């Protein structure tokens, strides 16, 4: 099986074949020795890649894998190489799913909404302040946009992933 793995804007080819019950793996065309063992179900693994030891947590998401390793987490998108090639031929580009909403990353209390409908908002500008864990947290815009709708009011309790502001 051939995969194309994408992390941020980088692509890697991984080729996995099975022979006599053993996996043969190529990374960007180069053979690589990989041994892996499940340390703790469901998500914890020990990998030995050319004898280098990695202690890794891998969590499948609906559309990607989260890989937790050396104290950092990475999101990795995978595609069959065939599908990937077809997409390239068709000029089919990776869609950048930039959601036109600001959601709270955690549950909390809305202390303030710093924009109003119709405002033009710039990257890095404060949009809302949420209180959680005894601290005020300012949520900032990650790119420029125009406020279409403010969906919550100060004083309102919000759940995680609740939409606060919708942009055009």
């Amino acid at each position, binding site marked *: *099986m051939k*995969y194309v*793995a994408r*992390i*941020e804007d*980088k692509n*890697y080819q*991984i080729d*996995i074949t099975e022979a006599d019950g053993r*996996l043969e*793996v190529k990374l*960007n065309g180069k053979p*690589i020795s990989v041994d892996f063992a499940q340390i703790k*179900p*469901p*998500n*914890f*693994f020990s*990998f030995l*890649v050319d004898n280098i030891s990695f*202690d*890794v*947590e*891998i*969590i*499948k*998401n*609906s559309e990607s*894998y*989260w890989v937790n*390793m*050396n*104290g*950092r*987490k*990475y*999101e*990795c998108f*995978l595609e069959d190489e065939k599908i990937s090639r077809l997409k390239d031929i068709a000029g089919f580009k990776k869609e950048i799913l930039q959601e*036109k*909403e600001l*959601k*709270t*990353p*955690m549950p*909390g209390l809305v202390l303030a909404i710093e924009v109003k409908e119709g405002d033009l908002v710039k990257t890095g500008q404060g*949009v809302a302040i949420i209180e*959680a*864990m*005894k*601290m005020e*947290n300012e*949520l*900032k*815009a*990650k790119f420029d*946009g125009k406020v279409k709708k403010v969906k919550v009011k100060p004083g309102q309790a919000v759940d*995680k*992933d609740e939409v606060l502001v919708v*942009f055009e």
Partner: protein
Amino acid sequence: MFKKILIANRGEIAVRIIRACRELGIKAVAVYSEIDRKSLHVRMADEAYFIGPSPSTASYLNMEKLIEVAKKAGCEGIHPGYGFLAENSAFARKVEEQGLVFIGPPASAIELLGDKMAARKTMKKAGIEVVPGTEEPLETEEQGLKIARKIGFPILIKAAGGGGGKGMRVVREEKDLKEAMRACASEAKSAFADARIYIEKYLEKPRHVEIQILGDKFGKVIHLGERECSIQRRHQKVIEESPSPIVDEKMRKKMGETAVKAAKAAGYYNAGTMEFLVDSDKNFYFLEANTRLQVEHPVTEMVTGIDIAKEQIRIASGSPLSYKQEDVSWKGTAIECRIYAEDPENNFLPSTGMVSHYEEPAGPGIRVDAGLYEGCEIPIYYDPIIGKLITWGANRDEAIQRMKRALSEYHISGVATTIPFHIQVLDNEKFKRGELSTHFIQEEFSQGLKVTLEEDELKMVALFAALAEYQNKKRVQSAFGGKNSRVQEKENPWKMEGRRRGLRRFGM
């Protein structure tokens, strides 16, 4: 000595105090709010009482309820930990009025030192240098301007009843003074119901060095040396160490004696901390007192070998200090990294949820003070400090190397933590050289965590994800092909974890 005490707190500090109790042969009574039924402090305590809904105002801050439970459970004293009611003089007074012992300083000392202006006045009277500024609340803008001109810009406006960076503002030019005074007074009023503000000289790149003191009820006070707590983010300490890289024996003695004098001037007993700002010429100025056990007390415990939490309980029970000043000695260096449930890759936003995987570092020179176990929940209601990692080394280099080793061993999944941020700070050259100031993080890590993507690392990530996908497909295929599809699905290791999806979606 007490037979049973109540711990009016939760999380890592409640666990810390339970451990002290156990070593003293004292029964530890825990209290818990609705969301804390399964918290580690409840599991570890000898007894546990429900005290109300999750918001702290309805539970951990409910003085009457706490005292009622203490009496019902037959406790002789209450340990407040830090935060919540630890520095509330009214609570200390109520506890004592009800015939229980408040395991901390006398209410009068909490009151005196809690009012920053009163504290400054007391210290000045005792001959202790304070940061130059006013001793009286500012009445008018003109008065503020006069004083600011006298001590010279930049100045700092502070709330008299404040703390934690609220109602605090740096003013660098005269033209900004008026607006800053107005804003601070308003913030102070809404945060502390106390609009009083005052002015202090703003020291450029000061170090924050504090002295731990211990005093008994017989008037004896000793100090346990200093901690340097200059590594702060948003006025919150992040990394602390003892000894301070700039404090030598002579300076330690001088600062220690000053702290003891300050404690005596305030009629203090039990454990406490005198905070000082130290300028580049090693002049030190009294900043404020912390009338409680501090988050960072373990670094002092590790270099002196003195168990401050146990000593607090002994003192409160009426025992004299177990140590004389000359019994106190220091060995090596200890460093503490506070583990916050905050996402350093995401502007340090709080992170809550279930700790899905948990492995603590261990081995030589490591101490973990945490309120965590695999499967526990981090609630949104309380302080984001979920644990502390402390290392000891024969010297500062060894303590730093140990800390890096320990951080790399500390596995916490399910909630984001500041562990990756600590690793970067410890790798910083200035940090390694001990060139610290309270502006360190602002200057060196203005963007928070430095997210670099190492090619070698990304390759491995790609490889692991692909192998996971391959195994996953194989499993699904055999599941659809074979009879045991249900069993196969059940064992599927690639469960979607909803929480993580939200992480990168934040923002817009």
